């Protein structure tokens, strides 16, 4: 048996080495188009663009992709929507590698993990691929790994806006808790902005349990969100409002509120299509969200501009997307502007859009 095994061993290693050599031969060609294209300002051939979400199979990113596809159509590029089915940096990395392998010109990505994908992104960048993060950016320290990041609006504004909505709902008085996914870069940033803003702006409002930490409950999926909702009521029976800066969380919170006929007010960031029933029946007065289609749309424009050399992502630089112009601010970020807010009055129309 020993002998047999070593033969098999030889076979396998042989196969590998063989392809290794072939590989060595072919690598240059594989990367050739990318590099050369990067060099030239104008390129005749159709641009190959990869649209990589945190995870496929999620409503929000389906919309995000639609926006991107629309832009691609306008620009005459081909856009492929590829990605993992679980939101982890590890899984996303494999698809970034695929993008490198297949010699895409452009990668538009929503970072599933602000750190874990950085090494892969740097590989892609070094392979001459134009990278634009959209919806979720990499860690500030790794900003150099992408050209520009398209985000809905100033992180702080997103946070403070939700506090304002809540104040509106509870009459600027009472204690507030938060349901948010753990280890999600955006949400963390927004919540950090909420803390001081609430203390400063609304003397009669306070964080449940006295501090932002004690008020923040972490939940990554509907089940956990529902449990978090119950825990909040168990821990802070007199809690006045719950903010959930995530479509999953705010939906779960709405469901729970309705199921338990709870008095607590709910607001946050939610997809109008998902939140419609609860806004229509008054369970939730108001939620907000930017249009994910825009995020995808603008990102593709920025990327193509960069590809054509007309845009480098430097602070203060501007680029065109459709009929709008966007300006890059510090940290290589461009913002869409104020998030939309949805209430009884406008939900009917928005729920058809996204």
């Amino acid at each position, binding site marked *: 048996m020993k002998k047999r095994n070593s033969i098999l061993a030889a076979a396998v290693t042989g196969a590998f080495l063989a392809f290794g050599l072939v590989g060595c031969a072919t690598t240059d060609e594989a990367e050739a188009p990318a590099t050369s294209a990067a060099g030239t300002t104008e390129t005749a051939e159709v641009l190959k663009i990869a649209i990589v979400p945190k995870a496929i199979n*999620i409503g929000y990113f389906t919309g995000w992709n639609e926006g991107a596809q629309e832009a691609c159509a306008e620009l005459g590029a081909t856009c492929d929507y590829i990605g993992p089915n679980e939101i982890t940096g590890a899984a996303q990395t494999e698809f970034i590698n695929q993008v490198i392998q297949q010699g895409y010109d452009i990668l538009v990505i929503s970072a599933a993990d602000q750190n874990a994908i950085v090494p892969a992104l740097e590989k892609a960048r070094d392979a001459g691929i134009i990278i634009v993060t959209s919806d979720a950016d990499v860690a500030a320290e790794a900003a150099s790994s992408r050209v520009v990041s398209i985000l809905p609006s100033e992180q702080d504004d997103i946070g403070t806006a939700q506090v304002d909505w809540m104040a509106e709902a509870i009459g600027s008085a009472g204690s507030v808790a938060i349901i948010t996914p753990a280890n999600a870069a955006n949400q963390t940033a927004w919540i950090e902005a909420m803390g001081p803003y609430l203390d400063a702006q609304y003397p009669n409002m306070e964080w449940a349990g006295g501090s932002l930490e004690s008020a923040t409950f972490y939940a990554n999926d509907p089940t956990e969100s529902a449990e978090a909702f119950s825990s909040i009521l*168990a821990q802070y029976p007199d809690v006045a409002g719950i903010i959930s800066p995530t479509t999953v969380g705010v939906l779960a919170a709405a469901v729970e509120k309705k199921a*338990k006929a709870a008095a607590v007010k709910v607001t946050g960031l939610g997809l109008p299509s998902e939140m*419609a029933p*609860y806004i229509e029946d008054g369970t939730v007065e108001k939620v907000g969200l930017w249009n994910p289609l825009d995020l995808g749309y603008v990102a593709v424009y920025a990327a193509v501009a960069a590809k054509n050399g007309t845009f480098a992502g430097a602070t203060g630089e501007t680029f065109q997307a459709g009929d709008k112009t966007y300006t890059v601010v510090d940290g290589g970020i461009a913002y869409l502007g104020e998030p939309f807010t949805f209430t009884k009055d406008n939900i009917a129309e928005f729920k058809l859009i996204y």
Partner: protein
Amino acid sequence: MSILRRATRFRELPVLLGLVVVYLGTGFLNPIFFSVSILNDIFFGVAIVATLAIAQTFVIVMRHIDLSVGSVVGLTSFLIGDLSSRGFSLLAVLFAALLVGATVGAVNGFLVGYLGLPSLVVTLATLYIVRGIFNEVGKGQTIVESMVPKELNWLGLNRLFGISYLFVIVVVLMLIAGVLMQRTRAARDLYAIGSNPSAAGLVGIPVKLRVLAAFTATGAISGLAGAVMLARFNSSSTQSGLGLELLVVAACVVGGVSIAGGTGSVFGAVTGAVLLQTILMAIGALGIPQFWQLAVNGSLIIAAIGLDRYLSTRLRSTNIMGASS
């Protein structure tokens, strides 16, 4: 002595003790915990896991396991919403859910029973396959309240004598399954199979058939549990039911349904599920720091397993002494 012996035969004793301890203990530290609303939260929250635990009991008593339930329940919860939004009647969609679940179960059962393949491997495989299909079917779509059959919606929102209908369903299911498991030959055969697989064949129990049937039943119930899931969350997406299988198995084990087969009851399984849920709520109510929850939860599960082991062995040994003396 005779009392002790009776106690030993009451396999669910340890988990019940555990439940009482956790509940009273928490309530003592935080009186709010005794409030009705908490009780409701527990019952309401446990419904899905409890239902799946009942189903899982059928296979675990046979010394088998079914890991595919998480994928199945997710898929059917989605299907029910999707189909009914396409205008199929409630009965039709429930039947569909049952059918899907039963089919997966039957496949598991056939591979395990007739081909004699290890259930852990088989159901791990079907876990992947069903999840993959589910993702493909439900690509990026979210089932929202408007798509949920209103009867289910109603079940999720309303209570019978202050107890969520979902838990009422669990109780009813538990009673039915309990009686079947205790009082029908076919079900007793499952215990025999789990207790001594080789002997089961010799006494003329149709082992293969029973295994097939049990897995099919597990699948079918898990399929229907999709309805419970949809009623509870009023929404469903490809994330639904992810990783639920381990929680279910944990509930069974904690509830005294031994992985070694042959012992345990649906009552135990449900109690185990309730205990886990209570622990979860307790952690919240005790204001244990957010990031400690999972760790505390894990260690409490270990404690539960340990307690069960300790009590059952200790009581059993006294039992043997009693018999021999």
